[in-house]
């Protein structure tokens, strides 16, 4: 049986005390243990940022890549070996600034990734510039007059891009976080899990106390239908005093990308022995050239 301890790494997190990343880290390990995926059966891919260092603190296959390129690297891993469950953990800058295009293309591709965004609505590692999810008017070193941009709405964008699983959770509720990740791990295609992650050092506004009274659980409403896209859009636009968390949308109306690729019908690619072409394969190739 897989346990949370199987994921214990000798490296201790360098996150600030109270950082919302601790809960995410614990939830990921718990969720993996719960669904019974051992460290060698998963691959956790990070980008660059505070949260993106999660693979360094977790005993599991991992890869810490480039700022903003988490998703394409993970896509390559998944297609090369869909025997591995591939999980992305990266920040809001990584995912929604530098990486926004990749995420939306991953969504429409429906590649089998669990894409966890450590959304602290700030740039942590580079010390506090505003991020794509920072509020309008947010004052930082690069926005001394307050940010002019409308924040990115990742839920709405993922829906618009055709994501088949779109969810939100937050670091203040470890159980909800774990559950949501477990649900995402059970999804076949691309699964977005945006997580409100308080940054206690550079984002004092969006603190635990900010979120606690605001978040409410979609799944507490028994009439909420996760297959209704327009309902999901309506909730995606809800913001302010009440902010929904949970699974906004989940359908299995089209197969995962890797399920459609002809070369992958025979199973994962990486473990296959790599051999020279057979004589009749060579013959057929040369036949094309005469």
């Amino acid at each position, binding site marked *: 049986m897989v346990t949370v301890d199987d994921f214990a790494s000798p490296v201790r997190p360098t996150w600030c005390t109270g950082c919302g990343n601790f809960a995410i880290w614990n939830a990921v390990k718990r969720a993996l243990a719960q669904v019974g995926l051992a460290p060698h059966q998963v691959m956790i891919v990070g980008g660059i940022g505070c949260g993106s260092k999660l693979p360094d603190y977790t005993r599991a296959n991992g890869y810490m890549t480039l700022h903003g390129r988490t998703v*394409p690297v993970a*896509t390559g891993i998944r297609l090369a070996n869909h025997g591995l469950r591939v999980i992305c953990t990266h920040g809001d800058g990584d995912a929604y600034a530098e990486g926004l295009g990749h995420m939306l293309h991953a969504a429409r591709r429906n590649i089998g990734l669990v894409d966890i965004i450590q959304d602290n609505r700030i740039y942590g590692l580079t010390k506090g510039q505003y991020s794509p999810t920072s509020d309008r008017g947010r004052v930082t070193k690069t926005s001394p007059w307050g940010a002019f941009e409308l924040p990115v709405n990742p839920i709405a964008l993922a829906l618009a891009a055709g994501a088949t699983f779109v969810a939100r959770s937050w670091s203040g509720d470890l159980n909800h976080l774990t559950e949501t990740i477990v649900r995402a791990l059970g999804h076949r295609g691309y699964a977005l899990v945006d997580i409100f992650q308080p940054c206690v050092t550079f984002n004092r506004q969006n603190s635990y106390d900010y979120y606690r009274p605001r978040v409410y659980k979609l799944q507490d409403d028994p009439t909420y239908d996760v297959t209704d896209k327009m309902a999901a859009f309506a909730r995606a636009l809800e913001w302010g005093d009440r902010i929904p968390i949970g699974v906004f949308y989940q359908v299995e109306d089209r197969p995962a990308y890797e399920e459609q690729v002809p070369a992958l019908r025979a199973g994962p690619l990486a473990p296959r022995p790599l051999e020279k072409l057979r004589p009749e394969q060579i013959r057929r190739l040369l036949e094309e050239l005469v």
Partner: protein
Amino acid sequence: MFSPLDDLTIRIGGEAGMGLESSGVGFSQALVRGGLHVFGFADYHSRIRGGHNFFTVRLARRPLYSHTEPVHLLLALDQETVRRHIGAVVPGGAVVYDEKDGLPEVPRRPDVQYFSIPLSKLAEEAGGSAIMRNTLVFAVAAGLISFDPAYIESVARDNFARKGPAVVDANLRVIAAGVKASRPFQDDFPFRMEAVPGAPRRLLLNGNQAFAMGALAGGCRFVSGYPMTPGSPVLEWMAAHAEEYGVVTLQVEDEIAALCMAIGAGYAGVRAMAPTSGGGFSLMVEALGLAGMTEVPVVVYEAQRPGPSTGLATRTEQGDLLFVLHASQGEFPRIILAPGTVEQAFEAGWRAFNFAERYQTPVIVLSDHYLATSVRDVAPEDLNFDAVVIDRGELLTEAELDSLEGEYKRHRFTESGVSPRAIPGHPKAVYASSSDEHDEYGHIEEDAENRRRMHAKRMRKLETARAEMRPPTVYGPEDAELTFIAWGSTYGPLREAVDRLSEQGVRARMLHFADIWPVPQGVESLLTGETIAVEGNYSGQFADLLRMATGHTVSRRILKWDGRPISPEYILRNTEYAIRTP
């Protein structure tokens, strides 16, 4: 000069959208089936309609490595073709033009013959459509040079089989009509090149195809790309063969994603590559460093075109050498191959993947539009599938993984710089590498001494690799007075230029580099006498690189940057100049 009986060039010209390239390649195929050697290349604009395009095929009874400038037979599908190319026609040569087009108002050359044939009309009558005049005019050409049209028919049969017998028959009728239309002029046309019946079967292909085939043979099983001339046909070729050979191919959102995905696949243990051109490569630069830092094997195929920026999208240049050599921040080992022929392109295909896995680092194969798209015939054994080796380098076997003791060190310090690699998925080798500087396990580590050693470990791989880089091909006498230096696609034109110089009694030789970086050992000893770099760029980048790497200063540089390939004649003209001026 070669006797035109051995060596003939036919050029067809017209507008974009007329399908000159595909019919030209079909004709070349027929020539090869007829036992001749060919070299064919297309010249076309970066637009879908309009603009002057042409396809040139040179044919001979001996192997060819290059095009040449003189044209013996010009097939003009519009007046513009005559206007532009009449100057290239040799005395005694001929122009075939469509009666309905007439000739442009330029002075007629008395030493050239003009054959008026109602091409469109005949094509329409025989085949039902005027657009078949390409086929017709090639049949005319066959008639004029006395080449057996049966070979053209056989190609038409194969190419149109999918479209049904009616289309095949229409083509055969058009070919017959063309041959017939050539009769009245046959005696006036002095150049002949009959088929060689029963000649051994040869293959016709371009550099892109050769490279792709080599890569497939070398175990490439993942190709991610974004369309870009002239590199992306490699993606298309792989896509066409993906299902049969078990290759994952994807067109993705951009070149950043393309290389990142290939790196992901390489990290996961699959031989992966991303084909592109210089503009796409520019977007891959950051990811290249990721592969260098995390020691991931990956191959980038970069088919150059003239820059900077969008430049001339459908033309040729060798302007990206120093760029790909230094691309990405910081320092890391990389290997660069620049094949000069289709045979070398095939080899580069599989060698690149071996280098990538042996040194766990990115390998760049530098091609260009000229090599990528020019067609040449080779013997089946020249695409040497037997020589293909799949060497995955220090890759831990299942048994070795099973018996691992202690925590696995993905980036173990070793003398060669290469650390034994485990493909992720084994319970005894669970690890996470980082693009941050890391320790032997892959964990982020900022310690100065670790950095010093880890960086040096990576860089050492370059010295290890240097020992197995192939020296340049030396073509010509040991005691040459002139040593020409080339890399990549200039092989063919330079080889021919050297041949001609020899015939003129000049002791010249070619040093051709296909293995570019790390610069092979012992090169210095070859750089003797008068050295002349021949390159398709403005500044002489390889000459600069040689100077940087060896200290040798070439005596002269013959350069070209107008987007058109270097010809043997261009080299000779500039050599005369170089010899004459002090």
